[in-house]
């Protein structure tokens, strides 16, 4: 990490930490009028300490095309939220149905994804979407082992591959 990257990393960490502190302890800072600068300086000192100790954890390196990835990630979040609602309705249906329409199977598939963020996003997305839970991930081959509750959700991952394509598009790893 060169000096410029270190400066960017520390700035981002400091801003994040200070804003987080402001949000969590805002009643201390804003409610007693006028502003109590001593309280604010406590926040600044705490944020500085955290920044010095752990900026390499929050921003380990400056990735490529961060802005494009962020812009592509936001629509993905909304799609994912809708998938979560569908997943819950699906499970609720299977639980409440008297005959309990489940037929569990374990499936395996490979993806083109390699980076940690992309693999984590896909693993979490699989767990949150209808009828499937990730069991293991092998990062070297991008191989996923998934437990599906019935045939239909398994086919959504094996045949349609909508989610893999979406994650690959977001992280530009097609």
């Amino acid at each position: 990490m060169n000096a410029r990257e270190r400066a960017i990393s520390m700035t981002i960490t400091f801003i994040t930490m200070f804003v987080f502190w402001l949000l969590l302890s805002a009643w201390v800072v804003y409610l007693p009028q006028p502003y109590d600068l001593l309280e604010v300086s406590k926040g600044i000192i705490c944020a500085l300490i955290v920044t010095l100790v752990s900026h390499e954890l929050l921003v380990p390196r400056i990735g490529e095309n961060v802005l494009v990835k962020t812009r592509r990630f936001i629509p993905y979040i909304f799609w994912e939220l809708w998938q979560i609602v569908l997943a819950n309705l699906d499970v609720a249906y299977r639980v409440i149905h008297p005959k309990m329409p489940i037929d569990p199977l374990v499936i395996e598939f490979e993806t083109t994804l390699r980076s940690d963020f992309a693999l984590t996003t896909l693993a979490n997305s699989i767990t949150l979407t209808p009828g499937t839970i990730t069991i293991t991930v092998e990062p070297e081959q991008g191989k996923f082992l998934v437990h599906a509750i019935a045939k239909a959700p398994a086919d959504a991952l094996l045949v349609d591959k909508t989610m893999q394509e979406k994650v690959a598009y977001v992280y530009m790893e097609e």
Partner: protein
Amino acid sequence: MLVIDVIATVLMGVGAFFMITGAVGLLRFPDFYTRLHATGKCDTLGEVLIIAGCMVYEGFSFITIKLLLLMVFIFIANPVGTHAIMKAAYLTGVKPWKKGDKRM
């Protein structure tokens, strides 16, 4: 004020419904993995809807932001927890239930 009460009640009620469904699924489903399907998924939306109900009921303040952060952390932490339990079970050799087997 009444409209806010109704919205908050509906959100919390639907959330409670999903939590109860998760509990029923835990009792009805045949084995470890399928039970995790019920609890792991229903809890996410159930908790988030209950928190959303609290947000609407309290009105907009700094507490809203705290609750919003809570929702984000639940969305990240819940699948990770489910995934960790699932992996532990798989690696220690818990056999998945197949259709036609008797309940475990």
